[in-house]
């Protein structure tokens, strides 16, 4: 469990909406280990995309530290930060929006290399390499993104991310905009690339099945907080937090009856989160203590963290 590539140390990010403070990410502690994939799952508005931007220092934290191999990113000077950017890259959700429609594919993929000051010849060589890597034809370089299908555009986005040889790749809903058959192609590509290149990945998605498929460890977020963190098998087969159980039960899947009975209400307004445990108004297990005290994220079973006063308890 050593060699952390990325560490989040009590990281928060606030926004001000209509004069009120909104904690998009609320004191999150997280460690991402080398060569592994950490999945982050949660519903819309839970803060998972903000977490991705914090990890890459695209937005600075309001408090707390983001450490890259033990070094606080916020303390790096502009040059060091730019050099670090080469080593941490992101794949976005919407392949249409994340590629500048007026740039040719070659220039798009070479952009991070240009920012690092690579020579023209080295850029061309590297672009050709990564095109092979993601399974795109070499003649793609001279075409515009509009000439490609959604799945191919996502390959271009992956090629751009891989071009500067990063060791950390963050995928923010990277397959959510794709059709089922294309989604499987891209998921396979990502897992293959990880194995070949020894990448460390953070895979963010609202889709539980996709997160389970690619991740070794999984964190569940609810209203800016991590409520459960465990290995993929532990989390999905032995969930400790009632919210995680609710989420898993709500996923419709062929050959599995839908268990909607256990789900109550909708995620509350993030501007006015409930007191204590944010989940208590929807929780079948909620007691008085849940309304008053926010449960810490502690070990509920071996290597299995949950933020619940009654982890593992069942509703019946």
């Amino acid at each position, binding site marked *: 469990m050593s060699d952390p590539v990325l560490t989040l140390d009590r990281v928060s990010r606030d926004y001000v909406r209509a004069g009120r403070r909104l904690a998009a990410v609320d004191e999150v502690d997280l460690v991402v280990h080398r060569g592994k994939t950490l999945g982050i799952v949660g519903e819309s508005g839970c803060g998972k995309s903000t977490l991705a931007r914090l990890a890459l220092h*695209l937005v600075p934290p309001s408090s707390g530290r983001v450490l890259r191999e033990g070094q606080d990113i916020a303390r790096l000077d502009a040059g060091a930060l730019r050099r670090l*950017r080469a080593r941490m890259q*992101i794949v976005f959700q919407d392949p249409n*929006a994340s590629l500048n429609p007026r740039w040719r594919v070659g220039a798009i993929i070479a*952009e*991070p290399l240009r920012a*690092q000051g690579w020579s023209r010849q080295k850029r061309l060589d590297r672009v050709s390499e990564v095109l092979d890597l993601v399974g795109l034809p070499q003649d793609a370089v001279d075409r515009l993104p509009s000439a490609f299908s959604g799945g191919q555009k996502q390959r271009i986005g992956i090629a751009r991310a891989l071009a500067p040889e990063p060791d950390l790749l963050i995928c923010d809903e990277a397959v959510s905009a794709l059709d089922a058959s294309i989604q499987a192609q891209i998921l396979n590509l990502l897992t293959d690339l990880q194995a070949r290149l020894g990448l460390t990945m953070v895979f963010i998605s609202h889709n539980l099945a996709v997160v389970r498929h690619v991740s070794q460890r999984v964190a569940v977020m609810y209203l800016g907080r991590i409520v459960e963190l465990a290995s993929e098998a532990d989390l999905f087969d032995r969930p400790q937090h009632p919210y995680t159980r609710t989420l898993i039960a709500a996923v419709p899947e062929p050959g599995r009856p839908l268990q909607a009975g256990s789900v109550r209400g909708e995620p509350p307004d993030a501007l006015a989160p409930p007191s204590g445990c944010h989940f208590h108004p929807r929780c079948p297990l909620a007691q008085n203590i849940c309304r008053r005290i926010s449960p810490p994220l502690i070990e509920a079973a071996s290597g299995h963290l949950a933020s619940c006063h009654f982890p593992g308890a069942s509703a019946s």
Partner: protein
Amino acid sequence: MVVFIVLVAVFAHWLAPHSYTRTDLFMSWSLPDARYLLGGDAVGRDILSRLLVGAQVSLTIAFSVLTIVLIVGTVLGTIAGWHGGWADGLITRATDLTLAFPELIIAIIVAAIMGPGVPAVIVALSLVGWTGIARIVRSLTLSLRNEAFVEAAMAAGTRPAAIIVFHLLPNMVPALVVRATAGIGFIIMEEATLSFLGLGVQEPQPTWGGMIRDGLPALRTEPWMAMAASAALAFTIVGFNLFGDGLRDALDPRGARR
């Protein structure tokens, strides 16, 4: 149409059969004939020559104003949209305040302070026009900076200045070109209105607006000058507006339905 107008304006002095200032009292309010193809004005100057040179005056003013507002509007709009914070507040408030005044009122104040003339027209129209460009550029900057490809560029380590120049500006060009073409028609129209009211271009420089004003009292007997200048003005503005519409449809398939 537009090409024709621009060519006429550029070669106005060369095309004009007579000097636009030469008076010939024998030709006062003369009917169109072989010498003065469109007749003469009150002091016997060749209407055709004055019309042609008037095109040059109008377009010179229009393009000067356009250049000024494009530069000022783009720079301020980009700063407001990208920087945000107090710079945005200041610039947005300035545009709102300018827009809070009717165009002609601004022109009247400027004309009153500077005295009527070409410089006053250019200042007044620039003062009015920069807000439109600044608003568009600001909102384009705001929406573009939230585009995933701009975020991708930031993640790639591209410097902000490079992001603005290589990512934002190229994506603004179509909207700005469309706006600028439509703007020319608008500026010509405003200039003509000011000149018509006597607040714009002054004698002896010919201007369509002024020719229409001078022709108005004689409308009953000698409608040539007012009619010819009206036609030239309408032709030019319609031309630029249709050109702008065409450009918009060509550059933005989404807005093709007008």
